[in-house]
């Protein structure tokens, strides 16, 4: 059990400089793939951007979700990321600067999670970009089934399913679709994906070094948000298969993919959970989907959208049509996944 009043430990120098130091580390480690804007140090730009005639894709949001958001900058995915403080939306200035830096004349698509801060800051940025004659569109990811009933799906949070939205939209943009075409692809991906998460242990912000919630030694939280927002049920610890079932029950009830159809799956670590556990979960998820006679087109397992050092995972399932299959298979080179 973590939690209570104890201070956490982090490999940082100063809570006030974590983001700038992280960004400096990223460009130092991957200088051929990304750069920061001189005049806007919270704007991470793909080495290939802007590409004339290509729709620019800007992602962004708070930090602390790494490789989330900024890690998806790279050919075939996002052209730039506006980087906020830990768990806090970037302000309009870095968003506008990123927008201008990736604008190749074909407009810019914002893909963000459905959080009041992100929505309002990107809205302010879009108004400012419009003043500079850059057309933008915004797609708000709302894949978290735990955060609102289906009747209010528009209020749902955006969580790890965003990875599929980035991938599909990034491929469509790279293939040369226009702004409304790319936005349509992103909307389609968002409408096809459902996610729910679980936390076993909390996380802590660099500024507070305090756990942002407390779970007792035999508790877990189903439906947790990627900032530690409370979920739908705080209940007793249970086996991995039962956890996966609790999540899949809700995800599949809504998605209800017909037998014989294709899906892709993401078993996403929240930051502090070992890969061993994620694959144990993946085994049961894939087994259950296969028994439902679904074809697993692709399965991602690992840390894709995290909540600092939170222990837990989320499971995303996306229903695929032929177009989405092609888009998910399209090559991409996101900067924080360029290992070998």
């Amino acid at each position, binding site marked *: 059990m973590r939690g209570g009043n104890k201070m956490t430990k982090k490999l940082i120098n100063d809570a006030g400089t974590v983001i700038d130091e992280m960004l400096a580390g990223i460009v130092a480690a991957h200088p051929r793939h990304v750069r920061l804007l001189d005049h806007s140090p919270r704007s991470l730009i793909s080495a290939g951007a802007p590409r004339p005639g290509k729709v620019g894709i800007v992602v962004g949001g708070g930090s602390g979700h790494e490789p989330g958001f900024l890690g998806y900058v790279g050919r075939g995915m996002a052209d730039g990321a506006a980087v906020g403080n830990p*768990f806090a939306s970037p302000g309009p200035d870095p968003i506008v600067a990123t927008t201008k830096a990736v604008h190749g004349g074909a407009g810019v698509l914002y893909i963000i999670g459905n959080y009041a801060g992100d929505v309002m800051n990107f809205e302010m940025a879009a108004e400012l970009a419009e003043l500079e004659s850059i057309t933008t569109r915004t797609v708000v990811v709302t894949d978290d089934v735990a955060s609102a009933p289906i009747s209010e799906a528009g209020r749902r949070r955006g969580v790890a399913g965003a990875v599929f939205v980035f991938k599909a939209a990034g491929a469509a943009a790279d293939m040369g679709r226009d702004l409304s075409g790319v936005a349509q692809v992103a909307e389609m991906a968002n409408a096809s994906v459902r996610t729910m998460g679980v936390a076993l242990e909390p996380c802590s912000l660099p500024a507070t070094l305090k756990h942002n919630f407390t779970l007792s030694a035999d508790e877990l939280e189903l439906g947790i948000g990627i900032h530690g927002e409370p979920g739908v049920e705080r209940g007793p610890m249970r086996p991995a298969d039962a956890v996966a079932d609790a999540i899949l029950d809700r995800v599949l009830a809504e998605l209800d993919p017909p037998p014989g159809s294709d899906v892709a799956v993401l078993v996403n670590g929240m930051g502090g959970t070992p890969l061993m556990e994620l694959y144990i979960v993946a085994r049961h998820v894939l087994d259950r989907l296969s028994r439902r006679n679904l074809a697993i087109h692709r399965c991602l397992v690992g840390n894709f959208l995290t909540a600092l050092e939170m222990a837990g995972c989320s499971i995303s399932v996306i229903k695929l049509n032929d177009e989405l299959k092609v888009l998910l298979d399209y090559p991409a080179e996101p900067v924080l996944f360029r290992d070998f």
Partner: protein
Amino acid sequence: MDGIEEITPADFVALLRLVCQRIAAEQDWLSELDRAIGDGDHGSSMARGWQAALDAVDALPEPLSFSAVCAAAARGFVNSAGGATGPLYATILMRGGAAVKDREMLDLGALASFFDAAGRGIRERGKSEPGDKTMLDAWLPAVAALDAARTDHKKLAEALNDAAEAAEKGAEATRHMAARLGRASRLGARSQGHIDPGAASAALLFRTFAQGVTEG
């Protein structure tokens, strides 16, 4: 400023500086509130936002005007606070500033229109309604109290005291809200029993204005 009935731009900056200090002092409590129903950053976001707002204001050339102060503070705030608070307070400051932009001094009537315009800005930017368990639930009662005090020809200090009391009551009332709309409803019944952090910090702002005007 004891007993003063008009606020100069310099007074206004002094009041914002008091807000900044008060928020910094209550930062941990505000984050604590946000931990219960949100992501635990409201205190640090507000503290960072106000500090940046004051830094931007301090960099302004003399002479100060309300609109210059508000524009600088808004821009400083929104690019530092992050989160929902950033654009909301930026909107508060910009809309409030616009409402009083021709004034050289703010009397009670002008201050009331500042806060009224700000409140309408919150609603528009946030697409939120009273009862959604947000800062609006502290803000709108304070605006109403200022209006009532003006009708009653109360003094500025007294009026701001009424506003602070109304905001505090409004914030306290969010404890029992389980709004259908707004962020709180995501938590269902579990959001009940917790004060909304944005309402709590809005009440702190009105209380600080009241104390600042009263105590100088």
